[in-house]
């Protein structure tokens, strides 16, 4: 496994938009297969640009996109081969759902791949099962809630059975319960071997969920690494305009005071809260109610 190339890789990619603004500068980033990746950066840092490059929708001005270690050919056949394996879910469901009904929209990708009706039907059913929308298959898209639309978008990509799933700001606009549900869905996909990369501007979420973090600032890929490793690098986080994730910072303070053990470091504030609650209380105040 040590020699396995990353499933997708940007190598020294530059991108300038037609209006002259810089999208990416010498950005290098590699996605190890089967892991959960978060692309973390402020608005305008170039997260969407990276995702569009990884799906071949933009073409590097300089540098290279590699798939399984091989440079991607940006011709028609090369792109079709890439997009068959790499699926991209955009941020705004209203911009990517164009069919009238759920089933019809989900079938769009498999039909374009040229499968026969039976295969398409089976894939649509499986994809809708995966996102938990089986019973909504026949509904009109515009009658769904925002969270449901988002899941239809994901189903539309899953029906193409990609090996890499890219998601642009998938948590935006979702409430806490929906976010938890979506994170669980992504975890199930990762467990099935799908490489997942999502972009976010929420450092707390990124460090709470991802295995690997890729830091982006002003079009530069400034660091990539294990979440636990990067969490201990406030210098890099600050350079990308983020603070240290609250869970890490709180844990450091509490560990310094001997309230919590030095390790394991909890990944998220709720996990830290659970760790606190699991400790025996040293003393109770009278009249104290626990939340």
């Amino acid at each position, binding site marked *: 496994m040590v020699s396995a190339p990353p499933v997708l890789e940007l190598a020294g990619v530059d991108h300038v938009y037609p*209006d002259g603004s810089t999208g990416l500068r010498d950005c290098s980033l590699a996605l190890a297969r089967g892991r959960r990746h978060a692309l973390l950066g402020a608005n305008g840092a170039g997260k969407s640009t990276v995702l*569009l490059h990884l*799906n071949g*929708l933009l073409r590097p001005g300089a540098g290279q996109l590699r798939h399984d270690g091989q440079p991607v050919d940006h011709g*028609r056949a090369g792109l*079709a081969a890439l*997009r*068959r394996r790499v*699926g*991209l879910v*955009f941020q*705004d469901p*209203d*911009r*990517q*759902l*164009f*069919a009238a009904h759920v089933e019809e929209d989900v079938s*769009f*990708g498999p039909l*374009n*791949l040229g499968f026969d009706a039976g295969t398409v039907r089976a894939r649509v059913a499986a994809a809708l099962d995966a996102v938990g929308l089986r019973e909504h298959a026949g509904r009109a898209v*515009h009658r769904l809630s925002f969270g449901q639309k988002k899941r239809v978008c994901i189903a*539309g*990509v899953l029906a*193409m059975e990609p090996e890499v799933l890219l998601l642009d700001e998938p948590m935006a606009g979702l409430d806490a319960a929906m976010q938890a549900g979506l994170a669980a869905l992504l975890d199930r996909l990762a467990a099935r071997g799908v490489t997942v990369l999502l972009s976010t501007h929420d450092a707390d979420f990124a460090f709470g969920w991802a295995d690997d973090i890729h830091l982006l600032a002003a079009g530069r890929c400034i660091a990539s690494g294990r979440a636990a490793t990067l969490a201990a690098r406030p210098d890099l986080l600050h350079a990308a305009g983020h603070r240290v994730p609250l869970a890490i910072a709180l844990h450091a303070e509490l560990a310094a005071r001997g309230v919590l053990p030095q390790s394991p470091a909890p990944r998220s504030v709720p996990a830290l809260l659970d760790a606190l609650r699991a400790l025996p209380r040293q003393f109770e105040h009278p009249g104290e109610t626990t939340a």
Partner: protein
Amino acid sequence: MLIETTACASRWRGVAPSAKALFALSGAAAAWLARSPDTLAVLAAVPVLAALLGARVPPRAWLGAALAPLGFLLLACMTLLFGPDPHGTWHWNGALLPAVQRTALRSLAVLAALLGFALTTPLPDLLALLRRLRTPELLLDLMALCYRMLFVLRQAWDEGVEAQRARLGHRGWRQRWRSTGMLAGHMAQQVWQRAAALQMAADARSYAGTLRFLPAAFPHARRQNALAALAGALLLALAAGDRW
């Protein structure tokens, strides 16, 4: 939107639109008056030079904007000179050459005059001018809404096409037709939704039936109008001298 982008970046953006319109219309009228090819060539060259040197319109942008009309000009002139007669035989019609030459130069002169206006004046400035010239309110509202929604819908369209490409919706011509039809249908249905949302947003801001905005102020309009009138009068005098 090459023309609009160029207009926003142009050095003459801050010049009163009334002055630029006056100059452009004088140029067009002069081209209509003039007869000789030489005068027409001068009348075509003046607005081009004014746009390139005065307003610093990049030559590439000017040419890019003129490409479509120049294509039409070539095709239409060729049709006049060379085409099928009623019996279906094609032949060259050399007798029309002087008339075609004059028409082509006149078209170029009028095109140069009005392109000079379009490449230096963002459309909203023109709308403000039309409002002052008492264009019907309803027409102005249509234009104002159309202009703003143009960019919104175009962005939505581009993003939709991008999402379709990500799902291989534009692999071949069959997929492309199907995808384009689906997207156009989806966006047609969005027209109603967006109109309803805009209505609600307008109502929330005390909308009373017409869309009114405060136009941009052009403090030097009087002087600029006078200069434009002078330059326009020179063009007209040149054309009149040529005709009579």
